């Protein structure tokens, strides 16, 4: 799951973060390690249901949602963080309770949850992820699959301590 995917979105995102960190690094050389927090994406919180249960798998599985959770500033991996995941899949709409589930990050700040295949809905094959446990600022993500045939999707969190 650590393969680096290069497509328009990741290149843009990476380019953006290089620019952002590069400039702040120039301005504040003492904080060269500064890792900027992830911003909530537009539409990320749509059809969110608070309190999705921690599950081994959402529905029948077959699709993998994975990612990392790190702390803003030093970029340290955060273990035991609860990430909620939902999407329009072959087993239900975004609003359906059975489409929602949560998982915890491991010691390396990595999370990975099996879920049913995401299918295009509202024009794009996309997933939703949330961090809202309260220790850090709430973040909602809405990653898009580069192809609706993909069987995995990644989303990464850098959280800002409250």
């Amino acid at each position, binding site marked *: 799951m650590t393969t680096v995917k290069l497509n328009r979105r990741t290149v843009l995102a990476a380019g953006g973060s290089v620019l952002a960190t590069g400039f702040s690094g120039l301005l504040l050389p003492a904080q060269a390690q500064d890792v900027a927090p992830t911003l909530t*994406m*537009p*539409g*990320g*919180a*749509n*059809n969110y249901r608070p309190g999705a249960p921690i599950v081994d798998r959402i529905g029948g599985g077959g699709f993998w949602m994975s990612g990392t959770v790190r702390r803003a500033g030093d970029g340290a991996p955060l273990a035991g963080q609860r990430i909620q995941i939902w999407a*329009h*899949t*072959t087993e239900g*709409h*975004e*609003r359906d309770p059975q489409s929602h589930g949560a998982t915890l990050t491991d010691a390396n700040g990595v999370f990975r949850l099996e879920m049913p295949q995401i*299918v*295009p*809905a*509202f*024009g*794009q*094959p996309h997933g939703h992820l949330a961090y809202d446990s309260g220790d850090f600022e709430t973040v909602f993500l*809405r990653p898009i699959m580069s192809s*609706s045939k993909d069987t995995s999707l990644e989303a990464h969190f850098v959280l800002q301590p409250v």
Partner: protein
Amino acid sequence: MGRTFLIWTALFCAIVVPIAASAMSPLLAWREPIYIAAGFAGVFGLALMLVQPMLVGGYLPGISRYRARRVHRWIGAALVSAVIVHVVGLWITSPPDVVDALLFRSPTPFSVWGVIAMWAIFAVALLALFRRHLRLRIWRISHTLLAVVIVSGTVIHSLLIEGTMEILSKVALCGLVLVATAKAMLDLRVWAKRRTSREGASAD
């Protein structure tokens, strides 16, 4: 007779093939009836958009110019209904996504084009209701400008969407809508100031 048959058959195919292809989409299996209805209202709307310039440009044989303009108005009303079913159906399916789109803050790039086309369709309908109070030239130019916004907005909207429409038939239908609209605009010379023989006909 051969030409008449050919034109009507071509129009029939241009409309029915994309709708039929959409009806065979695998995505339908994972959608609720209201979401399916909302999607098809959009597909029907796009297909109806091809008939509008064909009618008003007089490209459909066997139908008088007067009758063609009457049908054009009825299809205009059907387009307004299709837009309403499309938006309301999507709103029932996922309210926050539609609210985002209507407020121009949606993450999906196609939403803004759809919403612009929607307002242009409502504006054109409103304008049509009050057209007797408008000067002919004002009416023609405003109607044509709004038609350009509607057609281009709708085409961009549908091309950017990954939905139930099959890609080839969607691109073909969008291309035909663009070509038919451009041809009707050029043929009718809506911007021309001179009085033409069409003045009488378009006063219907």
